[in-house]
């Protein structure tokens, strides 16, 4: 019995040490990344018109609007059911009490690129900062310029229905230490790759996840446990072998598959509020990337 107790104590100590270490590493890396962002943020002046387009290509409007509850644009409250519980998208209008009215440009950049709240706590990975971390600071400053002009909407969003232990800073630090590279210097090789992997954050739904909710192998090969319990199809070049370039651009424009069927589920919102509103050139870039050898992992 004494041995068992000692073993349990040892396991708990090692686990505790790992958590503390993960927390310390993530805090340290985040601090360095924040300092870099503060410097970068000063160099950019945002363009609100371009920012609206960045919001479209990043899916901000689709996720932060509760269409089913007839919510106002960007006022949050949309429920997303995940294997870990239900999360509600936040209100990102400039309302100072229920939205992000008290945020600065730097707060916004830190939230989107580093996944940290202005109070220093970490966001859950339901917020796709792993992908947004790869977005250009210029695009995000434009996005902030547009968001700053959006009318404030008072809408108090429900708290996430996720076990509090999973939402603690220590747990989220561990998650970040495993699955999020805050200091990534990833450069997109093409506009299409940028739209798919950074702004469009397609991996978030179209990639398999580990039991801890991390993206398994950064491949768009589908996910049988997607958001809201949906099976999300694979969209690697192999999965899309039977689709022509025109089939893909047409799908991105109106949600129609090559056999004449129409998409359903959450992809409907992605098409309606994001890909359908992109320029034809950007839809073509996405199709180019999805059909390329680069997208075969």
């Amino acid at each position, binding site marked *: 019995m004494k041995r068992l107790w000692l073993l349990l104590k040892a396991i708990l100590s090692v686990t505790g040490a790992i958590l503390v270490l993960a927390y310390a590493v993530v805090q340290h890396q985040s601090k360095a990344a924040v300092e870099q962002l503060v410097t970068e943020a000063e160099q950019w002046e945002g363009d609100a018109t371009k920012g609206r387009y960045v919001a479209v290509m990043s899916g901000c409007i689709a996720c932060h609007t509760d269409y089913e509850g007839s919510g106002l644009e960007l006022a949050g409250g949309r429920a997303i059911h995940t294997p870990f519980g239900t999360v509600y998208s936040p209100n990102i209008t400039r309302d100072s009490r229920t939205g992000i009215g008290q945020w600065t440009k730097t707060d916004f950049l830190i939230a989107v690129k580093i996944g940290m709240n202005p109070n220093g706590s970490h966001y859950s990975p339901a917020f796709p900062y792993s992908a947004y971390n790869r977005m250009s600071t210029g695009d995000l400053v434009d996005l902030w310029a547009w968001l700053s002009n959006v009318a404030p909407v008072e809408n108090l969003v429900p708290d996430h229905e996720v076990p509090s232990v999973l939402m603690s800073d220590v747990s989220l630090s561990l998650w970040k230490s495993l699955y999020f590279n805050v200091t990534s210097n990833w450069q997109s090789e093409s506009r299409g790759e940028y739209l798919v992997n950074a702004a469009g954050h397609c991996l978030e739904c179209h990639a398999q996840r580990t039991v801890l909710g991390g993206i398994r192998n950064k491949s768009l090969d589908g996910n049988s446990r997607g958001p809201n319990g949906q099976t999300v199809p694979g969209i690697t070049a192999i999965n899309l072998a039977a689709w022509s370039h025109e089939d893909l651009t*047409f799908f991105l424009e109106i949600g*129609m598959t090559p056999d004449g069927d*129409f*998409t*359903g589920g*959450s992809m*409907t919102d992605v098409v*309606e509020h994001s890909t359908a509103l992109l320029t034809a050139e950007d839809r073509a870039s996405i199709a180019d990337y999805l059909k390329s050898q680069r997208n075969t992992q």
Partner: protein
Amino acid sequence: MKCYLKLLMIAALCISAVASAHSDATGVIKERMDGMNAMAVHSKTVADMFKGKQAFDVIAVRDAADAFVYHGQSMVGQFPDTEFSRTAKPTQALPAIWDDAEAFEQAVQQFIQQSKKLLIAADLTSDQTALKKPFFVATKNCSGCHKRFRQPKR
């Protein structure tokens, strides 16, 4: 016209693969699935013309709009609130159709109205560019309805 017929035949063959999965369907479930398949054939035909895979033929657009209106109107009576209609395999219908019947009815009526506008447009012009928008507007209802009222595909 020959080209259009060929295209329709190929589309029908493609859809028959899907239809075979529906061969177990009976009664209203078969009726509504057949209606959906017929609309998919027409949608594909028109879409292939917009994609440049086939020469544009306004008659195909008119036929598609006609089919959308016909099957849309039929749809109203194809979802009775019965145990069979709600649950018999291989239905893909979600309970929201009956639980939020008003929204479903409204969505179907909107589809019919916008399909009628497409029909009128196809009577007035044979310009491909001019017909793209009303086709998009009418078919946007398809994914809107699938999102709320059809089980996601596995």
